[in-house]
């Protein structure tokens, strides 16, 4: 199994488990399950995490030292993704509700942890 495939599987699995727990909590709290663009948030964050991991693994030899910079750049991409796809919809009623915030933040955090793991593995090699 290639290293890249291993990370893709890990990110997808981690986000799927997180999604399951997230939906379970929403069910217990009697909240709507698939509101607040939750599917877009999970799919978008997984896709961006895979994109960043590909960047970290396939970085040219001359830029090996700049992996951390690439990681930070990836975080800026995610902020861009949030502001373009979510912020305006969340702010329609004037404020970002807690469920709206967590709909984006939980998949973001899960994907970020997996990206960080990949970065640490690369840096430790």
């Amino acid at each position, binding site marked *: 199994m290639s290293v890249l495939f291993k990370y893709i599987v890990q990110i997808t699995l981690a986000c799927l488990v997180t999604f399951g727990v997230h939906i379970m909590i929403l069910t217990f709290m009697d909240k709507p399950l698939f509101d607040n663009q939750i599917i877009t948030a999970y799919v978008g964050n997984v896709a961006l995490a895979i994109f960043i991991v590909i960047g970290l693994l396939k970085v040219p030899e001359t830029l*090996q*030292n*700049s992996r951390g*910079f690439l*990681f*930070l750049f990836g975080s800026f991409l995610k902020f861009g993704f949030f502001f373009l796809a979510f912020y305006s919809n969340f702010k329609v009623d004037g404020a970002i509700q807690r469920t709206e915030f967590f709909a984006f933040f939980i998949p973001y955090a899960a994907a970020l942890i997996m990206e*960080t793991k990949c*970065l*640490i593995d690369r*840096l430790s090699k």
Partner: protein
Amino acid sequence: MSTKKNIYFCTKFRIVNRQVIMQFTRALFFLAVLVLIQPVFLTASGHAEHASDSTESTQVANQEPAQEGMSMKQEIKAHIQHHLQDGHDFHLYTDTETNTHVGFPLLVILLDDGIQVFSSSRFHHGESVAESNGNFYALHHGKVYKTDAAGTFEMHDGHVHNEKPLDFSITKNVFSIMAFALILILLFTGAARSYKKSLVPSGSARFLEPLIIFVRDEIAIPNIGEKHYKRFMSYLLTVFFFIWLVNLFGLTPLGINVTNSISVTFALAVMTFVITQFSGKKEYWKHIFWMPGVPVPMKILLAPIELLGVFIKPFALLIRLYANITAGHIVLMSLIGLMFIFHSWIGSTLSFGLSVFISFIELLVAALQAYIFTMLTALYFGSAVAEHEDH
């Protein structure tokens, strides 16, 4: 033997100096970058919108309070605030009796209905409405707003709600940055040229050489290390001389206040941030994301703290410079203002003496802030390029 050795050392010393100065002159583009990006931050500092629920309309002539209607304390406060602000013209002096302003106008460049370019003299120091291609603009607290022909401001809760065009004007600060860049280019190209003629410094090089050596030997080498310091010297020298020069000119009665503008210190800090992150070696990132030599739970705890530190460091850099210079100016001008409030010869003499003393302290602060900014920048660069054997 000893003389020969000394001559060899001096020659080598001069050659290194010349290389450093040549590097510096080549790298003055940092200042050009600063000039280019500063207006963007200026415009980003506030973008007022149209307000449908405006409750009050005032006209441009009423915006600047009449000097005669103010108390002495209010007048001093207004004067300090005016001094701290960036402006669209260089205002040196106002004759309140004849209401004439002494100074010179600058170029106003607005992105509104195409590009509007006109002289700031059309504002008559904020007392008139400027017309450009059928659009009308007026100044309110040094900012340009779009108005009608009468210069009406839509006021709501004490705030102007007129449209604010994107302002890319050559303001007092932008003009000052350009002037200082030119001064630095002239000084350093002159110094570099003098080394081509002789290894003995002459002209401006006699003054600049010890300072350059100081930045190299006391700031760059101890913080970055012998191996990597050279590639950062151009930036460190630019930052040091730029901050020092603008701080010194800030103490003159010209009303130049470049490092008192948070957009300038922000631009400088962003450049330091980008260079640091881009120069970061594997070890630097490892220290952030997986701190070596500590237990795993500690590593997990330290990672977010260290990552936050990456952004806090440049933030502290920009706030420190901005706050120190602003505070210094406020203290100094308040002490000068006290001379006019005290109506006794003891009070006025004391505040005069104190303001002279603070002025000398400010001279020290001007150099100290340039030193601190450069030193911390070098420290961040050093941590970014540090290799394992350096620990």
